Every structure is written in structure tokens, then in C-alpha cells.
């Protein structure tokens, strides 16, 4: 058994993991960092983020504005201490990326340019055309090469965490090419494995977004928090689910139904803003949860457009003109042409809501620490309280760098204060993981893995989708229980060692099922509607009295998760009605009159 000792192990080398690694390497070059990823770092799904990253830069904007937009965008389920820390550090971290070479789009004078984004009162979204995540990821990856203390384990799949003696002790890895296991003995571990969008059939996520880190922590007793909150992005391509960035609407794109009518004005997001203009927090610049819900409503009314890829509405960019589309949205044009055969310069793009982001995740405090000593989590896999019940677009890329740095610093300090335990115990714990893995690989089951995966995706769409009912969620819960049972008996035909992807898919499917179960069980017990969790079975209103709290799903081996709750941290912003469009302005006026 190969045991590699390190100070800080980071699992996942997307934006969050890379930023954390650099933070450790910069502040403590003497600490060894093991940066582990099941793919090469630049394949991580940060790469697919398009629109941009939020950080206050304009004189007429303020941290308070960013704070308020985020908290109300999250329907007051945000931990406000976390949000405060986030908005205070956002611009600094984006500037740091700029210093490292990130090609943020510029104004004519050479300063950072910003674009409008949904739910943001003032333009504050930094962007690199429509490949913001791509450029951030490549900048971070390339910068990380500078630091000799970062040892990468590319294409190493994390089989499990090691935890005993009341703290995290490392991880067991499968070297995908070799097919052999390696044990990382670490003083501290940072989880940065990304989301779990692949539990749904239609999603914007890459194939690697399978909730690995969430499930691993969950199985080690760390609760998954707020898992019922799953974001549907309102504009994905039908069929494949590929993302059409919110930046399309930030630049002035409009959404219309089959009659060419801008239906958003019928759902509290109006009045209509003239085509060619944008007004922050109005119409197409409303938040994602609302816009996805509007689609569903229109679909019920029969106002959507039927296509062979399913019902859609149209995202119309034509009035922006070819030059602006090429400058600001070149990737969107490329994707739309390739995957639905539509050139947005000449035709509107068919779009529908698709699963995009898991607001919930591994419970952490505002400093990225989980309740398991030595274990930290950052990025989409974590729930640090930033996004509440609905994430605002462009907050998550910033989250990666703000909390990536924090996680790196916190973990470094923890590593300095800690000693490695005796190897024998690590060896023993690792052996158990290896035995389990070996047993899975050599199991002689009969259940089709792809069938389970497909049924899971479909039942999640049906039961824990944009609108939810007790009955639909119960059905999903029952189905997931059945699928988990069947998973115990899956067929793995390929028993080989070298680059056995069938085996990896099998382990990933296990991660997916656990994550899905946490989502469904958290959802059914939240008897209210808040942010992305919308019920239409008598709980259509937000219920602050009973549910202004985080849900916590605790893993119970062989049983349904146990759901508990924790307090939401509220500092300055008391829960209020969440309104957009003209209603928001009326509310602000009202408040000013009161204070005036």
C-alpha cells in the first residue's frame, strides 16, 4: 500500500480547489499540498461557466447593495455573516485573478468592464466575454504551476475520505491509469469537488459533476445542508441542456412565448422594459428561480412552443446585432449553431429551464470549516450560507476565489497546528476502503447501471423539479429507495485495472444516489415555498415562522437520511417580501418614506 504523507490534501482541482492550493502555497511555501482531481484540472466544470463573476466596482454601487441583492435573492435563507465577508472580499479576489492574467473584458480606458446580471441592482458582473469560467480556470491552473509545493494527482479518483480519532486523516485514491490505490495521509483535507447536477436528466453540467465530495462527507457524518434548493437555469438548450448564459439577457436579450409576447411581465417582473434597453431586476433580469417558474406557468397555459426536443420559449438576441453578439457572446453563437442549428444573429434561440446548480452542500461555517475537524469545503459542493434558497448568477465564480483563499488559509493553519497520526491506523482504515472497493469491482450483479442512472434522473425531474408536491416528492423518495436497493446488485462487466471507466461510473452512481436522496428528503419536509423550492400543494407561501432555517440531512447507513434544522444567521437584513420589477421600486420608495 503506497502511503503518501502531505500537509494539505485538496480534492477537486476546479476554481475552488486551485485557488485554495495557491493560497496554501503562497502563504506557507513549506507546507506540502496534494491537489487531487479525477480529471486534468482544466477539464473541471468551472470551465463551462459563461457569464461572469460579481464584485462591486462602480462608484454608484456599494457593498451594501451587493449584500442586499444576495440576501433577498436567496430569499433570506443566507447566512448574513457569510454574505458580508463575501461582498467585502469579492472585488479584491477578482483583482487578484486579474493580476494573475485573467483576461477580463475591459472598457476603452483599460479598466475592468462589468455587465448586468439577474437580480443584481447595479452592474457588477466581471466577465471575460462569455467564457468567464474558462478563463478563470485556466488562469488559476496555469498560475498554480508556479508553485513547487503543489503536487498534483491528475486523474486520481477519490474513493473515500479517511476519518478517525475525531478528525479527518486523509483520502484513498484510485490512480485511474494504473488502476492502483494510493493513500494520502493528510493533516487536513479541503473538499472542492463541485456540484451534483447530474442527479437530474436535463442539466447544464458536465459528466463529472456527480456529487462525489458531498456524498463522501455525508457518509462521514457531516450533514448536507439546504439540499432541497436546486437551481434551474431558465435558459438551457432543449435536449442537451447546454447553458445559454444569463449574460445573453444582461446584454439585452429577451424571452418571448409562442405569440412573441414577453410573458415575464405577467409574473411580477414588469412593466415591460423596451427592447434594446435593460433595467436591473426587471423582466429578463429577474432572478433565475423566478424566471424558471414563469416558464412552467407559461407551459401550463399552453403558451410555450412545441418542438421535437420538447417545449421551449425563445431567447431573442437579434436586436443586439452581429457585432455585439460577436464581441460579447461569441461562444453562445458557436454553441447555438452547433447544437440546435440556430444562428442567434438571424433567429431566436429555443431555450428551456435546466438544472444548473446545487445551492446546498456540505455544511460549513463562514470560514469553510465543516463540523469534522480538519475538513474544509469550498465551492458548489459546500454550503457556507452564501446562496440561501436561490443563488444569484455570477456569485458562484466569485465564491470560488473568495472562499478558495479562505479554505487554503484555514487549512494551512490547521496543518501547522497538527501532527500526522501513526501510519498503522491510516493503513487499517485505508484497507477497509480498498476491500470495499475491491468487493464492488468484483461483484456479480445484474442490474443495469445506465438504467438506474436514467431512472434516477427522471424521478428527480418529476418529483423535485421546479414545482413540487408532497405526492410527487414521496414518489421520488420511494423510487430512490428502490434504485439504491438495485444499486447493491449492479452489473460491472469490466474487471480490468487500466482506465476502467465503467467502474468509475459505478462509484459515481453511488455518490449520485446518496446526494439525490438527501435532496428529496430535505425537500419533502420543507412545507413552504422559498426561492427555488416551490410547492403547489397548499404551501405556496414562505413560512418564516417555521422554516426560516437551514435543513440538515444526516446520513443513515441503509436507511433514509435524518433531517434536522439549524438557525440562519441574520445580522442586518430582516426577512421581507421578495419582490422584483416595479413592485421592488414601490417597496424601496415606501421604505424611504418611512425612514425619511
Amino acid at each position: 500500500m503506497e502511503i503518501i504523507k502531505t500537509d494539505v490534501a485538496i480534492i477537486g482541482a476546479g476554481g475552488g480547489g486551485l485557488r485554495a492550493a495557491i493560497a496554501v502555497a503562497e502563504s506557507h511555501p513549506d507546507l506540502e499540498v496534494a491537489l487531487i482531481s479525477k480529471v486534468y484540472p482544466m477539464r473541471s466544470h468551472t470551465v463551462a461557466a459563461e457569464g461572469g463573476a460579481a464584485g462591486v466596482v462602480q462608484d454608484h454601487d456599494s457593498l451594501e447593495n451587493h449584500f442586499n441583492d444576495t440576501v433577498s435573492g436567496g430569499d433570506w435563507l443566507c447566512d448574513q455573516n457569510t454574505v458580508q465577508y463575501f461582498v467585502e472580499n469579492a472585488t479584491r479576489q477578482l483583482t487578484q485573478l486579474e493580476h494573475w492574467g485573467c483576461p477580463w473584458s475591459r472598457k476603452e480606458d483599460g479598466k475592468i468592464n462589468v455587465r448586468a446580471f439577474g437580480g443584481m441592482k447595479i452592474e457588477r458582473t466581471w466577465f471575460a466575454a462569455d467564457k468567464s469560467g474558462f478563463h478563470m480556470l485556466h488562469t488559476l491552473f496555469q498560475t498554480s504551476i508556479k508553485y513547487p509545493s503543489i503536487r498534483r494527482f491528475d486523474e486520481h479518483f477519490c474513493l473515500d475520505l479517511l476519518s478517525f480519532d475525531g478528525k479527518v486523516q486523509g483520502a484513498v485514491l484510485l490512480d485511474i491509469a494504473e488502476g492502483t490505490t494510493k493513500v494520502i495521509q493528510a493533516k487536513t483535507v479541503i473538499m472542492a469537488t463541485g456540484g451534483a447536477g447530474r442527479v437530474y436528466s436535463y442539466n447544464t453540467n458536465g459528466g463529472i459533476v456527480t456529487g462525489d465530495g458531498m456524498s463522501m462527507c455525508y457518509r462521514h457524518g457531516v450533514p448536507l445542508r439546504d439540499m432541497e434548493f436546486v437551481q434551474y437555469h431558465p435558459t438551457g438548450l432543449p435536449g442537451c441542456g447546454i447553458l445559454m448564459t444569463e449574460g445573453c439577457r444582461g446584454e439585452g436579450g429577451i424571452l418571448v412565448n409562442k405569440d412573441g409576447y414577453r410573458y415575464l411581465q405577467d409574473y411580477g417582473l414588469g412593466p415591460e422594459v423596451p427592447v434594446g434597453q435593460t433595467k436591473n431586476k426587471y423582466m429578463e433580469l429577474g432572478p433565475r428561480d423566478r424566471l424558471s417558474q414563469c416558464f412552467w406557468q407559461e407551459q401550463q397555459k399552453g403558451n410555450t412552443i412545441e418542438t421535437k426536443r420538447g417545449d421551449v420559449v425563445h431567447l431573442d438576441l437579434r436586436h443586439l446585432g452581429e457585432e455585439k453578439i460577436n464581441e460579447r457572446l461569441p461562444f453562445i453563437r458557436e454553441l447555438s449553431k452547433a447544437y440546435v442549428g440556430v444562428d442567434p444573429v438571424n433567429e431566436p434561440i429555443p431555450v428551456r429551464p435546466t438544472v444548473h446548480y446545487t445551492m446546498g452542500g456540505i455544511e460549513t461555517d463562514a470560514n469553510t470549516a465543516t463540523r469534522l475537524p480538519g475538513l474544509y469545503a469550498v465551492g458548489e459542493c459546500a454550503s457556507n450560507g452564501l446562496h440561501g434558497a436561490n443563488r444569484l448568477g455570477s456569485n458562484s465564480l466569485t465564491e470560488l476565489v473568495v472562499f478558495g483563499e479562505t479554505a487554503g488559509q484555514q487549512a494551512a493553519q490547521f496543518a501547522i497546528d497538527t501532527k500526522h497520526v501513526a501510519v498503522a491506523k491510516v493503513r487499517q482504515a485505508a484497507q477497509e476502503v480498498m476491500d470495499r472497493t475491491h468487493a464492488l469491482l468484483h461483484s456479480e450483479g445484474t442490474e443495469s447501471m445506465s438504467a438506474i442512472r436514467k431512472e434516477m434522473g427522471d424521478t428527480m425531474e418529476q418529483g423535485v423539479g421546479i414545482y413540487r408536491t408532497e405526492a410527487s416528492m414521496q414518489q421520488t423518495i420511494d423510487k430512490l429507495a428502490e434504485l439504491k436497493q438495485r444499486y447493491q446488485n449492479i452489473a460491472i462487466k469490466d474487471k480490468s485495472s487500466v482506465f476502467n471507466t465503467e467502474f468509475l461510473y459505478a462509484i459515481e452512481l453511488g455518490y449520485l444516489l446518496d446526494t439525490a436522496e438527501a435532496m428529496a428528503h430535505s425537500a419533502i419536509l420543507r412545507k413552504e415555498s422559498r426561492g427555488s423550492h416551490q410547492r403547489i400543494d397548499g404551501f405556496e407561501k414562505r413560512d418564516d415562522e417555521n422554516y426560516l432555517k437551514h435543513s440538515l440531512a444526516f446520513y443513515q447507513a441503509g436507511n433514509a437520511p435524518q433531517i434536522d434544522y439549524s438557525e440562519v444567521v441574520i445580522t442586518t437584513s430582516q426577512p421581507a417580501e421578495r419582490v422584483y420589477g416595479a413592485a421592488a421600486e414601490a417597496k424601496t420608495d415606501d421604505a424611504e418614506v418611512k425612514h425619511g
Partner: protein
Amino acid sequence: MSKRKPYERELPTDWWLKHAFYTKYMIREGSSILITLYSLILAWGVFRLSQGPEAWQAWLDCLTHPLSILLHLAVLVLALYHTITWFSLAPKAADLWIKGKKLEDKPIVIGHYVALAITTIVALIIVAAY
């Protein structure tokens, strides 16, 4: 023990026949052989000129041989091919910016043809004058 056994594929000697792009590239590169031959013939002519009028006349007579004419035709075709392909690649080696925008490929290629036309005309004028 590692079960890896990375397999190295050998590059077949006829790799350049496997894809039209490579074949065209090899013709472009290969054309330089005949063009070199042509320059040697010219250089030989200059040398013969220095040996007196008879030697010069003998060289001229050689050129009228049908084989020589065929060779020159082949050289002409390949020289034209080389020129066209080379001109079409020229923009890649040009880093010309006007008002913050990279100059498009087309004007660079056209520029090369214009230069070719001018030098040809100048050469013809000189030849005609003597």
C-alpha cells in the same frame, strides 16, 4: 505491479499520402527541389557566359531540347504552386495591426500578389530595354 502498457503507434513512411492536407504540404516542400534545380541551371548559364560566346550558345541550345522545355514547364507549375500556397500562408507570419484591430488575411495576401506583379513587370521592362 503496473498493468499499463501504453501502445506507441509508428508513423508510416507514407503518412503524407494519408491526408490531402499533408500531401499538399509535401508537394509545396518538394517543389523546392525542382526550383533549386532551376537555379542551378541558371547559375550554370552564367558560368558558361564567362567562358565565351560559344559556350554560351551551347548552353542556349541545350535549353531548346524538348526535355529541357518539359523540365522548365514542370518548374513553372511548381513555382506557381509554391507561390500560391506560400502567399496564402503569409498572413500567419504577419503581425500587422491597424487601429487596434489585426489586419485581415485578405489584404495581406493581395499585397503579396501586387508585389509579385510589380517585380515581374519591372523585370520584363529591364529585359525589354536590353
